[in-house]
């Protein structure tokens, strides 16, 4: 049974948002991409999604304090008898337990020994993923980080996943040396470096609430997503973030993409 994500007006349904949020594995990649792109451009659906997440956050209960259980006397007696019986077997079990404990700690030590113990690490090769998608008036295209032809007016959006919470800054720059912040986006009147934005762990692809439109400056456009354990600003980012450590003093992950801008195609989308 295949139920769509959109209503008759082209907005995401309540069920569609639920499925994208709670069971993304049941939604195919193409539908997810279309939905992500819609969310990028639709305030109504973005508001509904924010409301959904706020509602869920409000429902999270604080952890309950553990309280000692009050056992009735017969139960205490029975438990006491079982504890005594267990203690009598301890000398026999002791050797086995000691061996198991030694083996356990040996394995743990082998796994956790690290030459840089203070390094911030997240598990797996895909601890932080970054994808750019381009909307050029047709179907949104998810790029593969290879050089990708774009035209002035095309918009790019970003989808990330992260296995741990951290701080994200997405920077863009062109061949003319003009640098700009894609996320978080800064008010045009605000001077100074852009600060990274804290993000939660994102197990399923999360559409970054920011999009950029390509201008008509000739040359290539580059974009770098920098994900660090602690806060930082664009001023902390090295001049070549895609090479080596993007932020000194932090174990950051950086993902980069470049786009070939084709000026001969002219704007394909109306200005946002």
């Amino acid at each position, binding site marked *: *049974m*295949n*139920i*769509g994500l959109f*209503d*008759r*007006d082209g*907005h995401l*349904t*309540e*069920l569609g948002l*639920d*499925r994208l949020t*709670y*069971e993304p594995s*049941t939604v195919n990649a193409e539908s997810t991409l279309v939905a992500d792109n819609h969310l990028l451009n639709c305030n109504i659906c973005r508001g509904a999604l924010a409301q*959904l997440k706020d*509602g869920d956050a409000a*429902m999270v209960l604080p952890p309950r304090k553990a309280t000692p259980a009050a056992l009735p006397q017969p139960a205490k007696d029975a438990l006491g008898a079982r504890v005594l019986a267990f203690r009598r077997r301890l000398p026999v079990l002791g050797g086995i337990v000691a061996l198991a404990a030694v083996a356990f700690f040996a394995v743990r030590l082998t796994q956790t020994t690290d030459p840089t113990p203070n390094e911030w690490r997240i598990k797996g090769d895909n601890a932080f993923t970054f994808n750019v998608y381009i909307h050029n008036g047709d179907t949104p295209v998810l790029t593969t980080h290879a050089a990708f032809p774009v035209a002035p007016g095309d918009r790019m959006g970003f989808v990330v996943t992260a296995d741990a919470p951290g701080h994200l800054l997405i920077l863009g720059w062109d061949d003319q040396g003009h640098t700009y912040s894609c996320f978080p986006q800064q008010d045009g009147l605000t001077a100074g470096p852009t600060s990274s934005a804290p993000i939660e762990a994102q197990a399923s692809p999360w559409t970054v609430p920011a999009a950029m439109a390509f201008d008509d400056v000739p040359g290539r456009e580059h974009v770098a997503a920098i994900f660090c354990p602690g806060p930082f600003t664009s001023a902390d980012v090295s001049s070549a973030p895609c090479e080596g450590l993007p932020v000194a003093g932090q174990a950051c992950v950086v993902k980069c993409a470049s786009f070939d801008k084709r000026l001969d195609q002219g704007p394909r989308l109306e200005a946002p």
Partner: protein
Amino acid sequence: MVLRRGRRFLPPDGAEDVLHEVFIRVLERYGEFRHQASPATWLFTITTRLCLNRLRDSRRQGQLLAEHGPTAFAQCLESNSEAAIFLKEIWRFVLQEDAELAMIGTLYHIDGMTTADIGAMLGVSDRTVANRLARLTAIISAHVAAGSAHGGTP
């Protein structure tokens, strides 16, 4: 998700009751779940049905609909007059007369789902949904005509 859906139809205490009912129903009927739909779709359908049943059976039904329903669907009331008439005037009547029609009307007018999606969700054909909606539209039209004949708001 279940609680949020319940709150669209019912006041908070009623929504919490429905939350419990939904999961009791899930435990009872898990064997019937054929994995043709996603779990969220299944929960969504059960929750909607139980909310409508509760509205139908409640002795405070009129009050619930008057106080809670229209405010919960305020967006729908503003955006679509047929949906507004269905919700304000027809819902109560249809709920009593034909629970399945009320379910289809709710999914169509309130949730804005397509006939194909409603059919897939309820396990009936697209055509059946269209026919049921045509009947609902006839009821709404008759209601509007009756209101006009009396010279007032239906």
